[in-house]
């Protein structure tokens, strides 16, 4: 049961966004690592957190209001900053302005770890305790 929840978090939240962006960059003869240096880790972090929230809200009908409140906290505390940082870095890149790759890599990695941790805890909360 836990594995069933972990798979969408890892696949939909982390692997697909980063993999697809890296794949399209590779098709355009760009380095796949640019997916990381452009701040896409923030996108994966946000997606992972959203996936965990969806899993929690869709599974815990017994405490739907509380699950919604917890998901809202995650959306405001993690997803919004992640998407904000990702959008900021994307705009800087699109307009050829300078931006810090260290911010994209280190901040993105930290947020990804945080978001995946939250998503896994949410998935664990959807499983029946033994």
């Amino acid at each position, binding site marked *: 049961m836990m594995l069933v929840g972990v798979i969408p978090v890892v696949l939909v939240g982390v692997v697909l966004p980063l993999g697809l962006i890296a794949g399209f960059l590779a098709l355009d003869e760009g380095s796949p690592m640019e997916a990381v240096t452009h701040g896409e880790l923030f996108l994966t972090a946000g997606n992972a957190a959203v996936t965990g929230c969806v899993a929690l809200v869709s599974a815990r009908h017994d405490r739907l209001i509380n699950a919604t409140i917890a998901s809202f906290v995650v959306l405001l505390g993690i997803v919004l900053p992640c998407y904000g940082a990702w959008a900021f870095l994307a705009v800087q890149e699109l307009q050829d302005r300078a931006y810090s790759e260290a911010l994209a890599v280190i901040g993105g990695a*930290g947020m990804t770890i945080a978001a995946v941790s939250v998503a896994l805890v949410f998935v664990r909360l959807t499983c029946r305790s033994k």
Partner: protein
Amino acid sequence: VLAGILIALLGLAAACVAIVIAQRLVGPVEAPPRPRAENDLENEIETLRLMVLQLRLELTQAERSSVSRDLELRRDIGSARRNPVGDERSLVLAQAPLAGTG
């Protein structure tokens, strides 16, 4: 680099807060309530068990009362045989066989 580290730390702090809030608000999955029919059946079984206990208690009391009456009758028969008064009950009691005495 500093901004990246700061954002990562802020993200981890937010994650910790979110995890604590989620644990407090949602908690582990509770066992689902049992079906009503099953509960009703268990209540009925418990009621029947209580009725059986009550009947057994009444049976014990009745047996005790019967033994008590039997002892009283034996005592009356013995008394009638030792001291025949002459009335009808004493005569019947004196001629009654005393079970267990041969």
